[in-house]
């Protein structure tokens, strides 16, 4: 599986062979995207940096497990970083609960907010604009449900509780949203 997002030469197979230069190139190419993702998940630079480092250790040690037939290089890297970020977020929530802390502030960014603060965004690549357009085409309710699951690591029932919506409604929204994203992915290839 390949997409226009990673048309540049594949690096992970070289990392799997122990090529340190390829590893550095992976870092240079993707660390900005992965760090942005971890900041979005964790909302805290210190934790995001710690998890980013752990994620790259995992990239180095498990590069042989990457299978280009199953997905793109960037998707594999994002999956590793997100998984580690959500693990960290959940352990922090457990700790916060234990300390009877209010825990992390919840943020759901609506597209309206993005538009308002859009001037704060920096240079956008054509690919990123295409992705954002695809996301902007999702109905707000679907996008919010997807973001709560993907960035906040919330379960179906937690999302249902948060949005004051029936569980079935939330599941349907997430499934419809994912179908649309999958359709859009076809268009990017």
């Amino acid at each position: 599986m390949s997409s226009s997002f990673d048309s540049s030469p594949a690096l992970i197979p070289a990392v799997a062979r122990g090529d340190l230069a390829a590893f550095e190139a992976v870092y240079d190419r993707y660390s900005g995207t992965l760090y942005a993702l971890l900041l979005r998940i964790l909302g805290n630079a210190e934790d995001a940096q710690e998890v980013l480092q752990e994620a790259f250790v995992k990239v180095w040690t498990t590069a042989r497990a990457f299978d280009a037939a199953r997905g793109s290089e960037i998707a594999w890297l994002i999956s590793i970083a997100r998984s580690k970020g959500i693990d960290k977020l959940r352990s922090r929530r457990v700790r916060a609960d234990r300390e009877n802390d209010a825990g992390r502030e919840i943020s759901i960014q609506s597209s309206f907010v993005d538009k308002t603060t859009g001037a704060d965004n920096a240079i956008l690549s054509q690919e990123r604009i295409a992705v954002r357009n695809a996301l902007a085409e999702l109905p707000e309710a679907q996008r919010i449900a997807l973001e709560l699951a993907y960035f906040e690591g919330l379960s179906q029932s937690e999302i249902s509780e948060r949005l004051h919506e029936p569980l079935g409604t939330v599941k349907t929204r997430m499934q419809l949203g994912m179908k649309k994203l999958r359709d859009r992915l076809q268009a990017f290839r």
Partner: protein
Amino acid sequence: MNAHEQYQEIAALDAIGAASPDEERDLHDHLGKCAECRAVRDEYAEAATLLARGLEPVPPPEDLRDRVVAAEEDNVVDARRRFGPGAWWLATAATLFLALWGWRELAMRVEREKYTTQQAEIHRLAEDNARLAQKNDKLSAEMAALASADTRQIALSGQQVAPSASARVFLEPAKRRAIVFFYNLPANAKDKSYQLWVIAGDKPQSAGVFDVTGGSGNATISIENLPVATEIKALAVTLEPRGGVAQPTNANFFVMGRSSL
């Protein structure tokens, strides 16, 4: 819906980590014996990453790169040490070599740090430049909208919970978009967001969330894809859980106004 379609719907949820434990177990059992559903699961997994790919990249601190790379350099050295010959002369030669190499590496690292600092500065300036250009474009578009002969205004007045608050909506009916300026709203708590509702038809529709911080009490939001102007009956603002909700959870309106379009 056949069994495969049901599993594929679970795969859609699994890709964003939202499948329940039972669903996840059933799905993985099925994937072990169904190549078609495995392929769909992989496509959903790839599609889910679009949520992250739309984020603006943020360069991590420069020293993090050094830490990450140094950790793996150590691993490489350890591996070579484990699998290499153990002769003492080789260790001595290696020590001398590493000492000489170390000076070279140190010099290279200094140069690399200079380079990365310069790159970061260039990146920062480019970001500033792009940000200012975007701000300029946005302001120009907003000014053009405000100045347009077709632009309609709707005044929202403060209600019981915030009598001194007000808002003014500048609506472009043809483009179904609007800019809303809010004044004298109380600052919202960190776990809350203000949410603007458009009442068109029976149900209020969310038109976006915003925060009011600091003492000014002012905020501005842009709205796209509004309902047709003649269908807009009123606009109102409530305070909701952070990030907004699908429908208002309370009727404590901060500002409200009826449309006469």
